[in-house]
């Protein structure tokens, strides 16, 4: 039995004439312990897909099955890391995580809960900032808090919605490693939504491109046969990496061109020539 299964999912926003079909005929199966990445252009309906899986919205048609049971509302078993951190700005780093932990483990004592909070803050290297508010933190630090909050709830599956999209390349690399390290520890199931093919290849076992919406649907999947732990610098010389990367990018480019051909928009450019400079 598949761990997570999406069956013929359709999602439409609005009604009647103004209805837009965002997702169309989505089929996806994720096995336990797997790390799957979904790669797609911005605006292709990735966030809608994530919200369907974590239970924030319901599909118009089709079923989302989690461990064989249809998904009804959110669950602590599926932890979410949101695209825009979604930290509560009036709480400190510690309080943000504490609030989540307290909901998941209502029977634990206060000191036990604080211990969990401290552990996870330590794990994302934010112990010095535990009493700071999100406003006082950099983007990377905020996302680490969001990661810590999601993981502290000890979910069976982690759903990441472009978690590193707003970060600079260096911070991004570090956080990728941290997430992989944590994932590797107890091999939870993970779903990563991203717009960065390299990130997908570096982190995931399987990459599935999302053909852009409206009526977005999933493309053919690409298996990543690269041994873990993966090394970023070595990865660039790995023939397997190059091959997969080129195949995915080619596929995405083709979709992009298809889309362009469909729209057929022509822009009239002014006929300009540069002025000659005299030094």
């Amino acid at each position, binding site marked *: 039995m598949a761990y997570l299964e999406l069956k013929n999912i359709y999602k439409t926003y609005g009604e009647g004439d103004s209805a837009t079909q965002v997702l169309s005929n989505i089929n996806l199966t994720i096995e336990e312990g797997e790390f799957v990445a979904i790669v797609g252009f911005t605006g292709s309906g990735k966030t809608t897909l994530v919200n369907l899986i974590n239970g924030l919205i319901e599909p118009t048609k089709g079923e989302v099955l989690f461990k064989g049971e249809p998904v009804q509302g959110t669950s602590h078993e599926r932890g979410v890391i949101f695209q825009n951190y979604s930290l509560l*700005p*009036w709480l400190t780093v510690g309080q943000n995580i504490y609030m989540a932990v307290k909901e998941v483990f209502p029977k634990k004592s206060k000191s036990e809960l604080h211990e969990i909070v401290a552990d996870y803050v330590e794990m994302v290297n934010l112990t010095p900032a535990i009493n700071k508010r999100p406003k006082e933190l950099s983007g990377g630090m905020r996302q680490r808090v969001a990661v810590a909050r999601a993981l502290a709830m000890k979910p069976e599956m982690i759903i990441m919605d472009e978690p590193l999209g707003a970060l600079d390349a260096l911070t991004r690399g570090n956080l990728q490693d941290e997430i992989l390290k944590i994932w590797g520890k107890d091999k939870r199931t993970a779903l990563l939504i991203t717009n960065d093919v390299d990130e997908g290849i570096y982190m995931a076992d399987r990459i599935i491109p999302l053909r852009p919406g409206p009526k977005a649907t999933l493309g053919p999947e690409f298996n990543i046969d690269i041994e873990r732990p993966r090394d970023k610098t070595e990865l660039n010389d790995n023939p397997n990496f190059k091959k997969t990367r080129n195949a995915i990018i080619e596929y995405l480019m083709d979709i992009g061109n298809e889309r362009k051909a469909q729209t057929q928009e022509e822009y009239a450019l002014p006929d300009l020539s540069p002025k000659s400079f005299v030094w």
Partner: protein
Amino acid sequence: MKQSITLGKVTRIIGISGFLETTKSLFTGKLGKEDFRNFLRKVIVPLASIVLFFGLWHLGAKTLFNIEAEYRINKALEEQGPEAAAQVEACIASGDISCQPNTLPSPSQVWDSYKTLLDDHYAISADKVAFKEKTAALNAQRIANGEAPIVYTGRPSFVDQILTSLKTVFAGFLLAFLIAVPIGIVIGLSKTLRSSVNWIIQIFKPVSPVVWLLLVFMIVKTLTKNSNADNAFIISFISVGLCSMWATLVNTAMGVSSVDKDYINVAKVLKLGPVQKIFKVILPSSLPLIFTGLRITLSVAWMVLIAIELLAQSPGLGSFVWEEFQNGAVDSNSKIIVAMFVIGLIGFLLDRIMLTIQKMISFNKND
């Protein structure tokens, strides 16, 4: 050191820290060329505007005084002949109180009235203390006998009136807070409720304080038929509360209904219960808007209070102003102007206090 910190805080709250700091740097000799423009903008120009204000006021008062005086002299001339006119002119010039034209008082007259009011306050306070001493023994005996003690029933001083007004405005503000915030939260949470009571808000929000007063009067008068409660106070504070609560009501409802979707998603993902969701996510995130509403409410409460006291015959600054106007004594007009400044200053201070509290509890420190 500690004192200077608190002083700095106080000046910042009042909003004159820029002024003071620039003046300080002038005297400590740390004034560079760049600072000079700052000095000009923050010290010279405000001071000049104050001087200009009082100058214009003085000139205006003088002109009005002359018009009034001339009219009186002409009237005397027409009705009683030149002799009487000369008499009136001499009387006005001598500064005798019996024949002063009644018009806008000059700044110096207002200042004199201010001192008179202060002296009056000290006199009344002394009187009260004396009364208390004199009746202490008798009152102790009366209380022992189960009788009501004798209380001071003399005229209230100006400062007493201010305190009464503050008491009324705070009672009204508290009432507005207790009514508007819970209702605002409930309305904000439910779309159905919001659209079903919207008409009440839209219709009653613009109603004048006077009408509220009359409405409250109709109800309270009947309800307190058999008690000897302080009717005037009850009526005025309830009217103040009802007039001023709308800003808080609307702002609270708006704040609660427009919580960032991300925060709602967090609440859903964490599976917070409805109570937890309201107290841990919705309320904190709408606090800034609620406080903006409360700030408006307090300033509206203070503004309508004067009118309501005036009409409700409830003691306070409003009735002080009205009594002085009815009184028509020589210094009545200048006392009214003193009250005007006091009302303005207190309103300003109340607003600043609210702003400071708002800044203290708001999570958007940078905004």
